[in-house]
């Protein structure tokens, strides 16, 4: 593959962003093509079948399963309220009465004369999908959802936890090297997305949750701090469904890691803007990275489009993403085409890169990512 390189994460002031908003089951789309939507606009809805409840009527009445149909007070398809009698059995000339009451409001869906079980279906559960971002409905997916299109600033993180939320961006540190600790989290950060530098501490996340902040973006996080915040360890890189108050997005990686200058500077310019963010991360087929979207942001100057069609070329800005230079920013110096032996004795494709301090280092091409604009 001639252009083998790791594309890296998008950090751009101006991008066309499309978000597919899809129902889990077929349903009804509530907006039309071309409609303007805001994050809380409901674009599609459906009802998923209500929760089923099974009741073993035969056991409760002390009768044989094949006989239960005779004792049902509500037949298949009939409605019943919680506490109402579902089935009744009178024995000994009617002197003794055994009853089974319904544990829920619902409909009798099935009466099994094999197992003696009765299945009750609770009322349908409405599910709705919102637009998540400000934008225009570009396409309607009949009965499934819509594609919302917007233009604005777009930043991808490397890893996140927590789902979709919206808030106003506030940069809480001076520079990309600074640590976001509890002292930088203010009481008026309620409803905000707080930007840190190289690290966010467990105490800062805790304080952010206390004041009602909705999101945090920082360069790195210590592994044990993340576990403390979540209350459990993470085994596989599939996140976004955690029940946590603050969505946390990491832009560089685990450990204290200076936020890329370009990312930090863009976030500074976005201060005061309303952003839609999502911590959901999935690192396997169908890669999903956490994101920060600021719809409608207009760059003050025209930004040049970066040409990535050539992949890595001398001068391409990149980030090294593995030891021994992990986290360092560099620029491609040259790209020898032949395989070379590295310290591990593996023969791999490498590149030479100039670090910020001017040192020239050799790095496997698999261990760099282009800083994309």
């Amino acid at each position: 593959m001639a252009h083998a390189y790791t594309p890296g994460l998008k950090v751009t002031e101006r991008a066309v962003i499309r978000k597919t908003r899809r129902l889990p089951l077929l349903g009804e789309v509530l907006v039309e093509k071309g409609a303007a939507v805001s994050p809380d606009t409901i674009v599609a809805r459906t009802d998923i079948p209500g929760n089923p409840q099974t009741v073993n009527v035969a056991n409760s009445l002390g009768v044989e399963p094949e006989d239960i149909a005779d004792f049902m007070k509500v037949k298949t398809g009939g409605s019943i309220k919680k506490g109402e009698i579902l089935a009744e059995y009178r024995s000994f000339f009617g002197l003794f009465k055994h009853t089974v009451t319904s544990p829920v409001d619902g409909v009798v869906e099935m009466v099994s004369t094999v197992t003696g079980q009765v299945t009750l279906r609770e009322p349908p559960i409405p599910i709705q999908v919102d637009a998540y971002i400000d934008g225009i409905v570009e396409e309607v997916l009949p009965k499934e959802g819509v594609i919302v299109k917007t233009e604005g600033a777009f930043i991808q993180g490397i890893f996140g936890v927590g789902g979709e939320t919206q808030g106003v961006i506030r940069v809480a540190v001076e520079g990309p090297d600074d640590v976001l600790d509890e002292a930088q989290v203010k009481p008026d950060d309620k409803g905000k997305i707080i930007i840190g530098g190289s690290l966010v501490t467990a105490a800062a996340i805790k304080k952010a949750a206390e004041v009602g902040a909705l999101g945090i973006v920082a360069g790195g996080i210590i592994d044990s701090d993340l576990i403390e915040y979540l209350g459990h360890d993470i085994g596989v890189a599939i996140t976004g469904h955690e029940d946590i108050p603050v969505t946390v997005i990491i832009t560089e990686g685990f450990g204290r890691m200076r936020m890329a200058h370009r990312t930090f500077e863009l976030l500074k310019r976005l201060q005061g803007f309303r952003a839609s963010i999502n911590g959901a991360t999935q690192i396997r087929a169908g890669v999903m990275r956490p994101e920060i979207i600021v719809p409608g942001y207009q760059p003050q100057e025209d930004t040049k489009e970066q040409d990535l069609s050539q992949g890595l070329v001398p001068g391409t800005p990149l980030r090294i993403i593995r030891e021994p230079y992990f986290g360092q920013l560099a620029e491609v110096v040259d790209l020898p085409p032949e395989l070379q032996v590295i310290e591990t004795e593996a023969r791999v494709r490498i590149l030479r890169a100039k670090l910020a301090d001017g040192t020239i280092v050799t790095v496997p091409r698999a261990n760099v990512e282009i800083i994309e604009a």
Partner: protein
Amino acid sequence: MPEEKAFKLDREITSVLATDCGSTTTKAILIEKVGDEYRLITRGEAPTTVEAPFEDVTAGARNAIREVEELTGKTLLDEKGVITPRHPDGSGVDIYMSTSSAGGGLQMMVAGVVKTMTAESAARAALGAGAIVMDVIAVDDGRKPHEKIQRIRQLRPDMILLSGGIDGGTITHVVEIAELISAAEPKPRLGIGYNLPVIYAGNKDARPHINNSLAKKVDLRMVDNLRPVLEKEVLGPAREEIHNLFMEHVMAQAPGYNKLMSWTPVPIMPTPGAVGICMQTASKEYDLSVIGVDIGGATTDVFSVFGEFFNRTVSANLGMSYSICNVLLETGVANIMRWIPFDINEGELRNRIRNKMIRPTTIPQTLDDLIIEQAISREALRLAFIHHKSLAVGLRGVHRQRTIGDTFEQTGSGETYIDMMDLGLLIGSGGVLSHAPRRAQAAMMLLDAFQPEGLTMLAVDSIFMMPQLGILSTVHAKASMQVFDRDCLIKLGTAIAPAGPSGGAKDGDPCVKVELEVDGNTIVEEVPYGSIKLIKLEDGKKAKAIIHPSRQFDVGKGYGHTLETTVNGGVVGLTIDARGRVFDVPQDKALRNRKLVEWFTAMNLYPAELLKKYAEV
């Protein structure tokens, strides 16, 4: 052995093109008849294109095949797809076929009545067909009915396999499970609006009731009971139906697969199912018990063939990148650090592992990093093998008649039939094993994680072409096995590992003496307990060996009994592993580091100057 042969050859085959559409990479291989034998000619690969923006698997397949075209100068593709059969001008191939695990492979839920009986049989059927088993639901799985229903609703499998009861037995319990599935109204992962396929392979007397419960809500299929009687497990019909449904539902819903299916007369097979067939064919061909492992980024598959028993397990969350943190979570940091002969801060190690998870395509640049990655792989392999042994068991609930000869060998029902002394061939596959910079590193990872006993040939799969060879073996077993032997397997060499000690032996006590006759020369090696010795014996060479274990050790003939045999060389050589079975590394850190450096040096695992540096610390 392969259970289905949906395609029959009607002409002589001299060229075969096969692809495996993996979750990240599509790999194409070209096999041709050269003289009297089939050989791998070349291979090509390209990123898989199931995901957006391409959403057409054939684009990736075309790119991989195009690489084969460039390397061979042959024309294999036209606008319709792969050119078959081969044209007189030399373009095209005689047959094309493909396997696939793209888009998450085949994901199944299985259900049965008793967790350790019918549900376990159902799990074996699904795993053997190449599926990832998302959950096993059983009457006695400890969950309340509403919890089971909730779980079935949450999962969106590609299909469900339901079994339970022996033919003519009670029907109540299996119908109860069917009612739970009916109540949950499960939906398939792919194809919004489609009915979920459910295969019923239980008590045949329950069929009318199963039909009543499920037919209106799911796409119900009935096949023969997989446990018609307690003492018998018949997995073939269920596996065959799984493969049919895989083609009809999963593949048909996946982007571009309809087009890919039109290119080939051989049904597309799930990648792990094809690897399983390859392993079974190899076991038969070599007349050996075989264990194979494929350690990937997200999952680790283990296959075993012992006699008539074939098993496959998937450890869905043990892998070297996407699920690397789960290895850490399951084994604990101490178990990883025990394979590392230098000091590393625990927090630093944890952060490094997390960073590998979020940037899964990176490779170790430093030796320290390589040693850490290989330490993690030992634990992932070890855990996956423990998981495998727990499922590769005899049928539970079966009464066995015992003879007097069984008195000392209590292998009752439900015990694993994996006999490490009987194991003849251990095959490793996956980047961390196949691409280890020194082949000895792969041999050592296999030895440490699996701890084979007696004599075992160690091998790695050169370029992971077992899926293609597996599907090829269903139509042309000879071609498949010739390529497997000559081009796929890299033989690392025989490992001699005495089991024991049977009593209290100390480090340095006598363990094994090996007399080798190679090319007319005799070599005698005595290896004490606690040590490893590597003897050069090149690939393709054989040596007559007389192996004398000391009285506390056994190499297959009983404790203290001599074994006379022939051993095979390999690219690493002949390893005499006298560390004992089962062995563990010392608890004491200083002693452990010293032993690790000693073993690594004996195996020439890493550069000598580096190991010297570790020894001095």
